[in-house]
């Protein structure tokens, strides 16, 4: 069962604009949960140990009782407290850059956080306890009662693997999704740079006709933008550019020595003109996806 790491979660915010988030992968969520579990178990054990020692020291069982209550609160409210106060994240989620969002796009309410985390106990801790010691959880019971229970519980626990969008049970009940915080990076605009050296603006050599610009579509434009970005970073040589420039010149019927002599300059000018052309067409409602798209 391979997971699509580029899967997205679409959420329509209160403004009515659909937003797209990268969906957190099961692996990421598992690691985040494991980190949280380590923190949770160690803090709960520490609290229990402290109260146990204090109880022995004072010689009072009541103190141990208070420790018991604290453990209960940590077990059930660790996730709830963090997710309500840390904007839908816990220490583990924060390290993995994950966030809980409400599926309906409204703010993440406390009731949703509580609902999704009440289910967590059933999904994870109860099956773990059963695996560890089935007798203690169920008590003696007839097999026809135990078997469906075990099956049902495993279906619940394996829900993230079985459900279409990798939601766990708590996400279904809370109406939430777990997303990865996307990284926003804006590279320089390839069309904003001047395609010609400032001293010699010989614009006439770098004009394209409508016919020449009608050959390629959106996909080729994007490929070209990527190539130029690579060239900016020094990952593409002049020879690479020359091959592409020559190909384009041949295809669109551009005459002249420029593609061979100054491929970078030619490509930039072509990119700019092509993008301007496609955007203009888009304004008229015509979208050309690729060179095979006849519109």
């Amino acid at each position, binding site marked *: 069962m391979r997971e699509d790491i580029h899967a997205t979660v679409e959420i329509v915010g209160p403004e009515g604009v659909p937003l797209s988030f990268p969906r957190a992968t099961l692996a990421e969520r598992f690691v985040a949960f494991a980190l949280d579990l380590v923190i949770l178990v160690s803090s709960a054990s520490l609290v229990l140990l402290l109260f146990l020692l204090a109880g022995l020291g004072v010689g009072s069982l*009541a103190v141990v009782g208070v420790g018991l209550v604290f453990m209960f609160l940590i077990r059930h409210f660790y996730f709830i407290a963090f997710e309500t106060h840390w904007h839908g994240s816990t220490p583990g989620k924060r390290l993995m850059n994950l966030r809980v969002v409400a599926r309906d796009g*409204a703010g993440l309410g406390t009731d949703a956080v509580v609902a999704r985390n009440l289910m967590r106990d059933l999904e994870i801790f109860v099956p773990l306890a059963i695996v560890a010691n089935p007798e203690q959880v169920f008590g003696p019971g007839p097999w026809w009662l135990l078997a469906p*229970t075990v099956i049902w519980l495993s279906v619940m626990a394996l829900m993230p693997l079985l459900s279409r969008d990798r939601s766990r049970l708590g996400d*279904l009940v809370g109406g939430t999704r777990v997303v990865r915080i*996307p990284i926003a990076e804006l590279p320089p605009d390839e069309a904003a740079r001047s395609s010609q050296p400032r001293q010699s603006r010989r614009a006439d050599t770098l004009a394209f006709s409508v016919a020449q610009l009608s050959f390629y579509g959106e996909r080729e434009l994007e490929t070209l933008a990527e190539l130029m970005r690579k060239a900016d970073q020094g990952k593409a040589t002049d020879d690479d550019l020359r091959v592409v420039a020559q190909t384009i010149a041949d295809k669109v019927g551009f005459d002249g020595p420029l593609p061979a002599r100054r491929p970078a300059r030619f490509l930039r000018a072509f990119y700019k003109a092509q993008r301007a052309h496609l955007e203009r067409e888009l304004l008229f409602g015509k979208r050309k996806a690729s060179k095979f798209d006849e519109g």
Partner: protein
Amino acid sequence: MSGEERRMEPRSVAFRREREGQWFELELLVDKALRGGLRSLEPAELHRLPILYRVALSSLSVARRTAMDRALLSYLEALAARAYLAVYGARRSTRGALRRTLFATFPQRVRALLPELVLATGLVALGTIVAVALMASEPGWYDAFVDPALAGGRDPHASTETLRAALYGGGEQGEGLAFFASFLFVHNAGIGLLCFSLGFAAGIPTALLLFTNGLMLGAFIQLYAERGLLFELGGWLLPHGIPEIGAVILCGAAGLHLGRAVLLPGRRTVRSALAWAGRRGSTVVLGSILLFAIAGLVEGIFRQAVTDDLVRYALAAFNLAWFVPWLALAGRSEGAS
């Protein structure tokens, strides 16, 4: 469009140039908010954030329709998504949120569960009646109904004196009973939480759990009734029993509501019915944990200190006097949320 030649700048270049400054400003605010929460923003920044967020959203909408620059588009998608997380990541709690939850939302949502509440109460009552009837014919059933760990020596083999002592156990035993009370709180609240979450399985495990809790209650009642200690048991049970059994029933009703969403989602999809039921139910469960805590305090402290039956009954009456009006009346005047 003059002639054949095209040398103009793409529109998206100017589009980006004009708005870039605001995007970058938003980026900085969002970075800060995602790192330290909205609280880390200055008042002026807090004021700018939603404005810039809407700028980014409108830029995104325009870019989706007009820009032929995927780098720009994916930047705006990511920026808007990040800003959404910063702005709507959590519903900010307003002044008096706790008061409103306790005295309006919680009782309102309890009342909204009326059919499930009736069913849950019926299941507990059924369990009680069954246990009483079975034990009346054969006391041996007791062991099947009550977990020995919870019985603490109170079983049909115990002498009447032992049973009576268990009702008034204080003094030397006090310390141990305080521990026992917090153990009971953890145990009972755990059962309450399970009552809710197990409801997902079409409500069946929740119904079973409610029924077995009724069995346990009935077994106790019959055990003491047989020895003529019913009145004394009432004084022992009712003060904490009202919030505690009430809380079990509330959690059970929330669980049955979940089950109903799975079985009978109505016009909605199962998914949205579940989310709806889960969110409403979770408020009820949270309130119930408070009830379990109150029950635990009554059990752990009050019952140790007070051994007089009449005072115990007085507290039971007092508990009933706040419990019922709270759930039945509180928040009626405020709009449902």
